[in-house]
């Protein structure tokens, strides 16, 4: 999902301009993204590319920061920073 300006299926929908309260999850994801960028482990452009790669149905189901963490996970797997096994092991401990 990317480059939606002027795409007819998204026209005529009112834009929600109300501010959104950030959850603890949102803040954690944002902080993690900044740390990863600071360590040179991902760029904001990789974040954007990963968000664009989310299938349309998932894209609409996920919240803004859920899209981020999905892209960040894909980037770290792609770069070999993390493995599926490591992620699964970390999730087991939660």
């Amino acid at each position: 999902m990317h480059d939606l300006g002027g795409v007819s299926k998204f026209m005529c929908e009112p834009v929600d301009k109300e501010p959104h309260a950030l959850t603890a999850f949102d803040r954690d994801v944002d902080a993690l993204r900044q740390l990863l960028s600071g360590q040179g482990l991902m760029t904001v452009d990789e974040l954007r590319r990963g968000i664009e790669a989310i299938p349309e149905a998932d894209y609409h189901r996920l919240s803004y920061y859920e899209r981020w963490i999905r892209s960040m996970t894909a980037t770290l797997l792609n770069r070999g920073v993390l493995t599926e096994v490591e992620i699964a092991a970390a999730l087991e401990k939660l």
Partner: protein
Amino acid sequence: MRAAGETVRVRDDWPETRHPCHIRTPHYLRGRSGTVVRHLGDFPNPEDLAFARPAPKVPLYHVAFAQDAIWHEGAAGDELLVEIFDHWLEPAA
């Protein structure tokens, strides 16, 4: 370096139909002509950064387009002002 006032055309190219891409040039401007307003600086190419490739710096410009030709709405004289990288611009025909 492109000068302010230069008429340019956005390349009518669709690389996303050929291979995975990350493109910052809006689809609705491909093939459209506009006017260079200012040089914003040189920045690493996001099309490379998105794939963690070495990213040479590319000049970035503010380019203005007459809005009515693109959106068919708005007041007379309305313009779109869009940031476009140099490699997407070519001389206007």
